[in-house]
C-alpha cells in the first residue's frame, strides 16, 4: 500500500463520491459479490479447519514433512499446489501460513476499529481539543511511509507475532480514525442528531444511539478494506524476511522461499500469490459493495 492510511483515504473519498453521483451504480456486480463472499468463506473455513484438526484432515499433510520421492514437483492430484524443494506439500504450507496471515489481518482490524474507530467517533462528535489531538496524531502517522514505520518497529522490538500485530495496528488506528471521524462529522450534522440535541437528550446517549449506528456501516466496510491492506502489508513484511520468526509459516514467507529457486519451484510463488490476490480482491470487493449498499445518504434521498 502500501501506505494504509493513504490508500484507505483514497478509497474512502472515491467511494463516497462515487456513490453520491454514480449513474452506473446499479451495475451487474451481484454475482461478483457472491463470488467474493464465497471465496472468503472457503479460505477462512479451510484455515480454521486446518488449525483445529491439523494434518489429520484428508488432503492436509505435515507442512514440514520431507518427501524424497516427490521433490519440487508441480501441481498434481496428491499435492494440489505442488511440492517444495524437499518435497514438502505447498498446500499444507499455505493452509498453515494462512493462520498467521489471517490472524494478523483480523486482529489488527479489530484493534484498529476498536481504538481508531473510538478515537474518530469521539473526535468527530465532541470536536474541541480531542479533535485537534486526534488530527495531529493522524497527520503525524500519515507522514511516515507505512512500510518504513513497520520495519522500523519490527527491527527494534524483535520479530514476534505481538510486535507485528502491534506495529501494523499503529498503521490501522490512525487510518480508521480518519475515516470514522469524517463519517461522524457528516452524521453529526444531520437533522435527527440536531433534533435529539434540541430535545435535550444527553450527548453520550446521542453518540451511542444516533451517531454510532449510522457510522457503523462505514466502519464495517472499511474493516474489510483494512483487512485486505493489512494482509498485503504483512505479506510484504514476511516477503522481506521481517515478519514472525523462522519456524512459523506465513504466505509471504512461502513466496520468498520459492523465489530463491524460481526455476525449480515456480508454483511455490504462483499458488500463495494467487491465494493472496483472490483473498485481497474479495475483501476489497465486499467492502466496496457494502459501502455502496448501506450508504445512508442515498437511502435518505430515494
Amino acid at each position: 500500500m502500501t501506505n494504509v492510511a493513504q490508500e484507505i483515504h483514497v478509497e474512502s473519498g472515491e467511494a463516497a463520491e462515487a456513490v453520491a453521483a454514480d449513474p452506473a451504480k446499479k451495475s451487474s456486480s451481484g454475482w461478483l459479490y457472491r463470488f467474493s463472499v464465497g471465496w472468503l468463506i472457503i479460505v477462512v473455513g479451510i484455515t480454521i479447519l486446518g488449525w483445529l484438526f491439523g494434518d489429520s484432515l484428508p488432503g492436509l499433510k505435515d507442512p514440514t514433512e520431507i518427501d524424497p520421492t516427490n521433490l519440487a514437483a508441480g501441481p498434481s492430484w496428491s499435492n494440489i499446489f505442488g511440492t517444495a524443494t524437499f518435497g514438502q506439500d505447498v498446500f499444507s504450507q499455505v493452509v498453515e501460513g494462512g493462520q498467521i496471515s489471517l490472524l494478523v489481518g483480523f486482529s489488527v482490524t479489530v484493534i484498529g476499529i476498536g481504538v481508531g474507530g473510538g478515537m474518530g467517533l469521539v473526535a468527530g462528535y465532541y470536536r474541541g481539543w480531542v479533535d485537534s489531538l486526534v488530527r495531529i496524531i493522524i497527520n503525524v502517522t500519515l507522514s511516515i511511509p507505512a512500510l518504513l514505520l513497520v520495519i522500523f518497529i519490527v527491527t527494534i522490538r524483535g520479530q514476534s507475532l505481538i510486535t507485528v500485530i502491534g506495529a501494523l495496528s499503529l498503521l490501522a488506528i490512525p487510518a480508521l480514525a480518519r475515516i470514522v471521524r469524517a463519517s461522524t462529522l457528516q452524521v453529526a450534522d444531520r437533522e435527527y442528531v440536531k433534533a435529539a440535541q434540541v430535545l435535550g437528550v444527553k450527548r453520550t446517549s446521542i453518540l451511542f444511539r444516533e451517531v454510532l449506528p449510522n457510522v457503523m456501516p462505514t466502519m464495517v466496510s472499511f474493516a474489510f478494506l483494512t483487512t485486505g491492506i493489512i494482509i498485503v502489508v504483512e505479506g510484504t513484511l514476511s516477503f522481506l524476511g521481517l515478519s514472525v520468526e523462522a519456524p512459523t509459516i506465513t504466505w509471504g514467507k512461502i513466496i520468498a522461499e520459492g523465489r530463491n529457486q524460481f526455476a525449480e519451484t515456480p508454483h511455490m510463488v504462483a499458488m500463495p500469490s494467487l491465494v493472496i490476490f483472490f483473498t485481497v480482491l474479495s475483501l476489497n470487493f465486499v467492502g466496496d459493495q457494502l459501502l455502496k449498499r448501506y450508504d445512508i445518504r442515498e437511502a435518505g434521498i430515494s
Partner: protein
Amino acid sequence: MIGIIVLLAFVALCVWIVRAAGWRFALKRLGGALVVLVIVTFAVSVMLQFTSGDESTRQALDELGVSRNAQPCITALGTAATDVDRVNECVDDRNLDDNVVVQYVKWAKQIVWDRDLGLAFYRNEELLSDELRQRMPRTAWLFLYSQLLALIIAVPLGIWSAYQAGRPGRRSLPSWLLPLGVGLLLLIGLVGGWKLTSVFAIAVLIPVGIFHFFKGGRQADTATNFLAFALLSIPVFVLGESLRYAFAIERDWYTLLPGYEPWSAGVGAHIGSIWLEALVLGLAAAPVYLRLLRADMIQNLQQDFVSVAKAKGMSNTHILLRHVLRPSTVTLITVLGLNIAQLVNGAIVVEFIYDFDGMGSYLIAAFARREFFAVQTLVALVAAIFILTNTVIDVLYTAVDPRVKADDDR
C-alpha cells in the same frame, strides 16, 4: 553554492505561498507542517531508546568499561565493537549518554545547522551524504518514470471510463461469461497444457474483451473499474516477482546484471536499466489514479457548466478535456503528493526484488545491519520531503480552488 540555491528557492517558495494564499493561512499551514515534522522526528528518537537494551545489558556494559548506553553503538559497529575506543567515540558522537531531549536537539542541530548527515555505515565509516548522492538520483528517476507511466495508463482510461459511465448500457455480453471464460482457461490448461491456454486466451478471450471494451456503454465502465480493482489487489511484491520472471528470466527483455546506468551512459542504456522497475511501480500506482479521476470526473460531469457547454453545442471531446478534466487535475496533483509515501513503500519492495541500488535497498541494508542512526536521519528526510511537498500542494490547491480555504475546518 547548492545551499544558497536551496535557500533562495525556499525563500521564493515562501513568498509565493504567502502571495497566493494570504498570511494567516500560509502561516497556519506551514506552522502545522513544522509541528508535525518535529513530532515525527522526535517520536523516532524516542523509539530509538528501545535499542539501548534492558538493565542487565547496561550493567554488563558498565562492567566492560564502556558507557552504560553503548548498546546501539555496539550493534551498529558489529565485529568492530571489540575496539573500545571506537565504541566510546561512537557513543560520544551520537550523544548516547544524554537524555532523549538533549539527544534530539543535538541531532537536529547537527542536521540543520552543520548540514552533516552523519555516517551511512558505522562499520566502514562511509558518509551518509555520499551514499545519498550516489543513490538518490536512481530512486528519483524511478519515481519520476513510474508516476509518468501510471498517469499515461490512468488518465485516458479514467476519462474513457467516466464518459462511458453516463451513457446507457448496451446489449452486450453478460458479465458472468468472465468466470466461465477463466474456468474454461483453467480446464484447457489442466487438460491440454499451458501453451494451448495462452493460445486460446490470445486468440479468443482477449479479442472478445477488447471488442466488449470498445463497444462502450456502461459495461465498459464496469470493466475498467473491475480492472482497476484487480490491479489494486495485487501486492507489489507479487507483481514485481511475476514481471521479473516474465521479462528478466523467461525472456531477455530486461537484463538484471549491469544494474542502473545513468543518463551519461546513453538514453537507451538508461531506460533499459530501469524500465521494468518503473513499470511495476507504475502499475501499482495506476489504479489509485484511475479510480480517483473517474469518480472526480463523474461528479464534475453532473455540474451545471457541463449542461451549459452542451447547450452551446460544444463537442463531447472538448467538454471532457477542457471543462471536466481541468478541475480534476487539481485532485490528481493532490493524490500525486500523497502517493510519495506509497512510492517509498513500493521502492523498498521493488528495489529488494530487482537488486536495484537505490534508497529502498539501502534502507533494507541499514535495517539488516541495525544501523539505526542512519535510519533515523533517513526517516526524518523522507518525512520532511513528504510533508513539504504536501504543504506546497495544499497551498497550491487553495490558490487554484478557493473553496478549500473556506472548508478548512473539516
